[in-house]
């Protein structure tokens, strides 16, 4: 009796995630952890009656491997731009029916035609962000403008960076004025000594929560996601966000429908819902990245808009990543080698 | 005889329990002394006090004239044979026997020779390379013995070393231990609860009861002249009878015992002035013969003669145990040699005549 009371819901849950037969009323969403407020999804269910089964991942690689390995059937996913680019090329995404997405008009024009999907046929921007420098201004008094100011012996063992080999190598390429999306053995050989120097200075590599080391006082500067920087700024104004002078990596996370989706209609409905200004505003409140939704931005408080990590002043030059194929393995090997040489 | 082990006023208290109460004991050099008593009587604690595993709460322990009261076991000139043998399972027979020598840093060559010698002494030649688990119980026992003897202790302590062996092997080992002790001239302190073992091997026996030494004496003294009711009861079999004085003169005391039988006891054996005492009658001291065969009547010197009826007969191999009841109703257990091939045969229901020498009666003062 007791057993069935526990087992039955568990079995049902399993059934509903994997069985597409009930797709009329359910939607399987596969998104980033810490990126979509549960309240937003609840609101969607309340309005449409469509139940959202929400699974999360922590990296584009996890998304890709789950999707191509066929582990689950998803109706809506949330890849980053350069991953979406590969997925489009590999025909893993289903073209969107733009007629079902009237709220597309709310997007700012600069987010309408991005490099990875020039016609906007496959993807809809969800949130955007940058990678930049966070400085604890109570500890650091010298002016910081770019990567070269961060990676100096003065900050030895006072630096946190993203544990992402591609990012690290890209920053070095910016300082060497190399094209970041054209990775060749020659360009890697050029940046190798730069990265080697940097690795010796870094104290922490952390992609999941680089803010922790900064908050704990274990480091004074960091090169981190703008969202992390925005949270730090909200926490304490001593954490200043600076866009590196040599070049700023920008990422746009998009919504897309996999080619294998069972409930494309519901997926379109959810995309359109997420594009609504009042809904998008809730997302910005919870996760202060750069909101590409121009109408939603109008609803934000002046304080939210003043967060330099979310909305950097001026019009900085941003660069997006493109897929570099197997060169990613070379970057991984390079960074592993330099790290283990310490 | 020089004193080898000397306990003076030793008390050992565990919490509120006195395991040993004010015991003083001297063991002579080259003596085989047995501590005999039931389990829990304190005999093992006495041994552990000598070995150094326990320190006395009160009193001192001397070994070979040296006060060792505060010395740890590894600084005492004694070695012990453990009840469980306590052989090191990770070492071979030779390594086990050589362990003590290694600890004493005896030179390797000498050590090897002594190990060989010790193994030969206990007839274990050729088993050096075996592990303890590859040996029989008797062999393990010998290894334990060799391991202790090879150290040439002043005193060898043996804690019920034979209790795990079967009856036949035990008897053989008793004789062997006795032989070894005579041959080596080492002082043995032997702990057992088996009175037969104690009687067979010991020069002297100490009866231990409730933390005290109840009686100390030779096997003969202990058996024939038990000093207390406990000693009489624990060592050998005895009919214990409450005795009350009926008549007395210079030479004899006439008493009535439990059940109404009247017996004569030598005046010298009776506690002076006492009206009551306890009489211990060994079953084999009662001479039984058939009424129908007066020619087989016992020696005339026997002072106590009475008749009885056999109630029960228990065959015990070499002997027959008979339960007899006298005319007045005194019930006694007696033992007769089983000579069935050519002698008398007793059956339940037979009427017999009994003779008992007055000097064979043991009088224990009433408590």
């Amino acid at each position, binding site marked *: 009796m007791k057993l069935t009371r526990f087992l039955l819901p568990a079995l049902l849950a399993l059934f509903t995630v994997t069985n597409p037969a009930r797709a009329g009323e359910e939607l399987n969403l596969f998104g980033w952890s810490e990126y979509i407020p549960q309240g937003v999804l609840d609101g969607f269910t309340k309005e449409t009656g469509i139940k959202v089964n929400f699974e999360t991942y922590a990296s584009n690689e996890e998304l890709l491997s789950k999707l191509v390995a066929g582990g689950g059937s998803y109706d809506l996913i949330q890849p980053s731009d350069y991953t979406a680019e590969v997925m489009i090329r590999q025909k893993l995404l289903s073209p969107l029916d733009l007629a079902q997405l009237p709220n597309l008009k709310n997007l700012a024009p600069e987010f309408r035609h991005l490099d990875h999907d020039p016609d906007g046929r496959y993807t809809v921007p969800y949130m955007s962000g940058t990678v930049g420098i966070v400085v604890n201004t109570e500890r650091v008094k010298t002016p910081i403008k770019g990567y070269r100011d961060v990676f100096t012996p003065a900050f030895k063992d006072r630096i946190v960076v993203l544990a992402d080999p591609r990012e690290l190598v890209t920053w070095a390429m910016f300082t060497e004025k190399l094209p970041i999306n054209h990775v060749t053995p020659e360009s890697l050989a050029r940046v190798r000594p730069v990265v080697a120097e940097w690795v010796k200075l870094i104290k922490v590599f952390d992609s999941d929560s680089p803010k922790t080391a900064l908050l704990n006082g274990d480091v004074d500067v960091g090169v981190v996601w703008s969202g992390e920087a925005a949270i730090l700024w909200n926490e304490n104004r001593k954490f200043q966000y600076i866009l590196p002078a040599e070049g700023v990596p920008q990422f746009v996370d998009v919504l897309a429908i996999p080619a294998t989706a069972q409930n494309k209609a519901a997926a379109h409905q959810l995309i359109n819902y997420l594009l609504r200004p009042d809904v998008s505003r809730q997302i910005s409140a919870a996760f202060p990245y750069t909101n590409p939704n121009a109408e939603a931005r109008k609803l934000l408080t002046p304080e939210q808009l003043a967060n330099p990590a979310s909305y950097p002043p001026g019009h900085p030059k941003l660069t997006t990543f493109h897929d570099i194929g197997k060169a990613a393995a070379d970057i991984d090997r390079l960074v592993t080698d330099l*790290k283990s040489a310490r | 005889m020089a004193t080898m082990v000397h306990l003076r006023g030793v008390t050992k208290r565990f919490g509120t329990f006195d395991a040993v109460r004010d015991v003083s004991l001297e063991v002579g050099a080259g003596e085989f002394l047995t501590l005999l008593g039931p389990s829990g009587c304190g005999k093992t604690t006495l041994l552990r006090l000598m070995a150094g595993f326990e320190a006395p709460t009160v009193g001192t322990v001397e070994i070979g004239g040296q006060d060792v009261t505060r010395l740890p076991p590894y600084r005492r000139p004694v070695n012990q044979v453990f009840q469980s043998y306590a052989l090191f399972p990770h070492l071979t027979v030779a390594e086990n026997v050589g362990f003590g020598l290694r600890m*004493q840093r005896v030179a390797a060559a000498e050590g090897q020779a002594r190990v060989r010698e010790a193994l030969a002494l206990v007839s274990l030649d050729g088993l050096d390379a075996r592990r303890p688990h590859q040996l029989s119980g008797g062999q393990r026992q010998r290894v334990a013995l060799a391991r202790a003897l090879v150290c040439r202790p002043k005193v060898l302590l043996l804690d019920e070393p034979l209790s795990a062996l079967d009856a036949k092997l035990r008897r053989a080992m008793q004789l062997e231990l006795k032989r070894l002790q005579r041959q080596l001239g080492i002082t043995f302190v032997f702990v057992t609860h088996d009175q037969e073992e104690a009687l067979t091997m010991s020069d002297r026996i100490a009866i231990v009861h409730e933390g005290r030494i109840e009686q100390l004496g030779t096997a003969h003294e202990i058996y024939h002249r038990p000093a207390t009711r406990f000693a009489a009861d624990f060592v050998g079999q005895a009919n214990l009878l409450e005795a009350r004085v009926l008549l007395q003169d210079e030479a004899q005391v006439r008493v009535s015992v439990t059940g109404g039988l009247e017996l004569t006891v030598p005046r010298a054996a009776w506690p002076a002035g006492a009206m009551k005492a306890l009489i211990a009658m060994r079953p084999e001291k009662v001479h039984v013969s058939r009424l129908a065969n007066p020619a087989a009547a016992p020696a005339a010197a026997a002072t106590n003669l009475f008749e009885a009826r056999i109630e029960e007969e228990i065959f015990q191999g070499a002997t027959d145990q008979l339960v007899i009841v006298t005319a007045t109703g005194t019930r006694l257990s007696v033992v007769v040699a089983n000579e069935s091939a050519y002698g008398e045969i007793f059956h339940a229901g037979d009427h017999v005549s009994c003779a008992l020498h007055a000097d064979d009666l043991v009088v224990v003062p009433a408590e």
Partner: protein
Amino acid sequence: MKSAPDRRTPRWRAWLLLTPMIAWLVLFVVAPTAILLVYSFCERDEVGRVVFTFSLENYRRVFDPIYLRIFARSVGYAGLTTVICILAGYPVAYCIGRAREEWRHRLLLLLMVPCWTSFLIRTYAWITILKEEGLLNGLIRLVAPTATGFDLMYTPTAVVIGLVYAYLPFMILPIYGSVEKLDGALIEAAHDLGAGPLRVFSSVIIPLTLPGIAAGTLLVFVPAVGMFAITDLMGGARVPLIGNVIQNQFLVARDWPFGAALGAVFMGLFALTYWILLRLGAREEDPA
């Protein structure tokens, strides 16, 4: 033989009883290992899909000096962790094992209680202690306001502290098991034969508890070699260990075949360690 059908029945039942265990083994041990081995000979395509061709390339890459160096360092960290666990765990295990019966279970319970909390939470607790503005330095500054304190967080020392903390119970428990089995009479016998406390320890107690030490070493060393969460959280992922490299292949570099090859070689090392320790144990342990 007449009794043959009678004998077959229990055998059939025995197999039936074993079925869940066999199914478990096949499903969660044999099958994943087989998949790992198959993958290790494959290649990857652009998005990281496994392409089923036969290639030794992944194994060639495993023996690249980079990974060998990382491997050696992982073994070094795990070895240091194991040694510290033995040194710190043995006295604890010995005291619990020789404690009075009614105390033993309470002490063991104390050992287990922290394990009821998630491992990650306990690791974060260590971060709270070791971080620069953390409990340890706070305490030091309370006692000596001028002291600079320790800069422990994100250092190899922090990694070893984390590893020792995580694996100490796995060292203590098997040693406790063999200490508890240790016959007190053997210790007395050794004392009696002239061995002082140190000699008793080295000649009797250590050899007789060696099976426990061997089992503990296995339980600590093998997982410590492959640990990646602690190096990430407490070491700042600065110095990659083999566990991080493997994790990276699966979750970041999208190179499952190479990760599988690393894993397969790693498993080979485990099997070898296990085999060696088993041999040592068989030699030391008394089967009686």
